[in-house]
């Protein structure tokens, strides 16, 4: 009892030291002088409350643990194949969801469709990063760099060479993949931690380059007037550029700016469906199986004759190429890009999506992307605390439920013992 009391007291003192200066005192620059002022009484009462809470929690932790057996979510139950019937039902559900997604924008407001398009971009990024982090178990902290490569590739190609969206799309993916390959090559031979820090640095470097290479990238001003994608040569603008037709002329309807928004949304839906399909196929291929095997046991993989560096490199490159596609679409949707869109925070958001959804789980990542992009939009006052929450989320998810909210399920057979 006595030792519990001392350790609780110690925890409380540490909490006090952590909070009293950083929260309780505010620094301000007045003129050239630096001044300090005490924080408001509310903050101080919060600090004291936190210290008391930590003290009491540590003091009665064991008793609390005895009283209630928290925290445990329902465990990730094993998936048992339900035979052909379940499979058919699943296909039916998926086709209903897709049909709903296609019909929905024609009845929704413009703002909602725009937000949905943004969410779809994050879904694509989340799925791409999911290959690297979730399936291959490599921590990529500079994922946004590949996104930037994709976006700038399209912007620069259209600016200097007048390349259309559809031609640029594969180029963006390929170039992002090339960057991934070049970066991954020296690093992936080593332990995973190096990759984390090198990608972190790479994300920063790409941003610095884009910011300073003013002659080509426009520096901090970015690139504007990036053309929107067209539909088989039909443009979605009020007036057609030379030698082109607009969509509304072709269809014989009056011009409506929401056509463009809906078209972009549908394009994003198409890209996401393709992404999901490709990744789904990949995970069932030998290479996809190898990614997961490598994540689980490096040494066993090598003894089976798999080359870990090559396998890691394919995962890393593949993930980068999806970021490139997403970047290309992002640039054409925004019509304007600048290095401001590709800061570390973006990488952190995408990582938070993967972590919350469940590493490796596609459905989880999709749901998490929807939650993490729509929620901050709905609660604007919450915006300020968003990154704080994402940081906390990562720490607690790892300690509490590392498999994510919707863990990855894989079909497997199980013996039933009780029957």
């Amino acid at each position, binding site marked *: 009892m006595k030792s519990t009391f001392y350790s609780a007291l110690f925890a409380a003192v*540490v909490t006090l*030291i*952590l909070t009293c*200066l*950083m*929260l309780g*005192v*505010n*620094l*301000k*620059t007045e003129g*050239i*002088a*630096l*001044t*300090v002022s005490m924080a408001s009484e509310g903050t101080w009462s919060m600090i004291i409350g936190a210290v008391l809470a930590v003290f009491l929690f540590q003091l009665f932790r064991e008793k609390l643990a005895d009283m209630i057996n928290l925290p445990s979510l329902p465990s990730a139950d094993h998936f048992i194949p339900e035979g052909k019937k379940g499979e058919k039902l699943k296909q039916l559900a998926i086709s209903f969801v897709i049909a709903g997604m296609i019909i929905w924008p024609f009845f929704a407001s413009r703002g909602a469709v725009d937000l949905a398009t943004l969410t779809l971009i994050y879904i694509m990024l989340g799925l791409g990063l999911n290959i690297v*982090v979730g399936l291959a*178990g490599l*921590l990529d*902290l500079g994922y946004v760099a590949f996104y930037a490569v994709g976006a700038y590739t399209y912007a620069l190609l259209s600016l200097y060479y007048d390349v259309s969206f559809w031609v640029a799309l594969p180029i963006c993916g390929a170039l992002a993949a090339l960057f991934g390959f070049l*970066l991954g090559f*020296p*690093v992936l*031979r*080593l332990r*995973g*931690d*190096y990759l*984390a*820090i*090198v990608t*972190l*640095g*790479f994300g*920063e*470097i790409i941003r*610095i*380059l884009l910011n*300073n290479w003013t002659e080509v990238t426009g520096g901090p001003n970015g690139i504007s007037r990036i053309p929107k994608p067209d539909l088989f040569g039909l443009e979605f603008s009020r007036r057609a550029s030379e030698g082109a037709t607009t969509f509304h002329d072709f269809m014989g309807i009056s011009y409506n700016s929401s056509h463009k928004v809906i078209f972009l949304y549908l394009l994003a839906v198409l890209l996401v469906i393709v992404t999901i399909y490709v990744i789904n196929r990949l995970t069932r291929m030998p290479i996809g199986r190898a990614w997961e095997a490598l*994540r689980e046991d490096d*040494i066993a993989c090598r003894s089976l004759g798999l080359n870990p560096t090559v396998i890691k490199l394919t995962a890393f490159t593949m993930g980068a190429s999806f970021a490139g596609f997403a970047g290309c679409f992002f640039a054409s949707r925004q019509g304007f890009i600048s290095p401001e869109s590709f800061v*570390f925070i973006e990488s*952190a958001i995408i*990582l938070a999506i993967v*972590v919350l959804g469940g*590493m490796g789980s596609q459905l989880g990542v999709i749901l998490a992307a929807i939650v993490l992009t729509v929620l901050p939009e709905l609660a604007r006052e919450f915006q*300020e*605390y968003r*990154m*704080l929450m*994402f*940081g*906390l*989320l*990562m*720490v607690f998810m*790892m*300690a509490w439920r*590392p498999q994510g909210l919707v863990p990855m399920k894989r079909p497997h057979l199980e013996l039933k013992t009780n029957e």
Partner: protein
Amino acid sequence: MLEQLLYFVQQLLNGLTIGSTYALIAIGYTMVYGIIGMINFAHGEIYMIGTYVTFIVIAGLAYMGLESLPLVFTAALLVSMAVAASYGFAIERVAYRPLRGQTRLLALISAIGMSIFLQNFVRLSQGSRDIAMPSLITGGWTFGDPSSFEASLSYMQVIIWVVTLVTMAALTLFITRSKWGRACRACSQDLGMTNLLGINANNVIALTFVVGAALAAVAGLLLGLYYGVVNPYVGFIAGLKAFTAAVLGGIGSIPGAMLGGLLLGVTEAMTSAYFSSEYKDVVAFSLLVLVLLFRPWGLLGKPEVEKI
């Protein structure tokens, strides 16, 4: 000719100044890596918090009317080390200890989450703008002809060297001579065996986080006084640089971290002087990739032999 030489010497002095503080931060990385084999991602944020605490203490003492320089300096040093050490302790407790024995990926994600949390915690509590402080220690020596180029060595630079040297000497003594230092070295050789021999490895791991954090706070104080400005985002790049320094010298080796820090500082100063200051981060980072490509165990480290 003399001018160019003086210019070179000036850059060398600047580089050594920045480099010695990088070395202080790098030691924190290297110590934690040496014992649990993981990178402490939140280490850069601790450096940033160290600078904030320094500024708070200095401004607070000035508010109370205390202006005596040695007193202010010592108080700021002690308080920022104590606060940073508590942060180091808390990081280990919250982000690392619950995940010990799990896959490495989980600890990495949890640590990067901690880093994001701390950065935004400071942003919300102290504001995201730059906070500037008038320099406390001014003046210095100058060499050369005032009409052409004049190399200067400020008192602040000398103080940085002296404090860094003293800190490193103290650390070396601590690691080589004290009981706790011996426990640290034992843990870095074999954590499980040390545990069997009756040393509480949990305490030793916590100790390395605390010591590393205190050193980062010293660097935070020195660089804070040298630059006179801080914002919540400085920890990010500083952490990246210090990690590069640690890898350059050989991660896990304390003398390596010192050497790597100095080398990186000088490289950066030379890049800004003779090439372009905007690309100094790019050069530092390319150095990291090159080291990983050709000599991943660093200058003073030993190649890792994997046992199965």
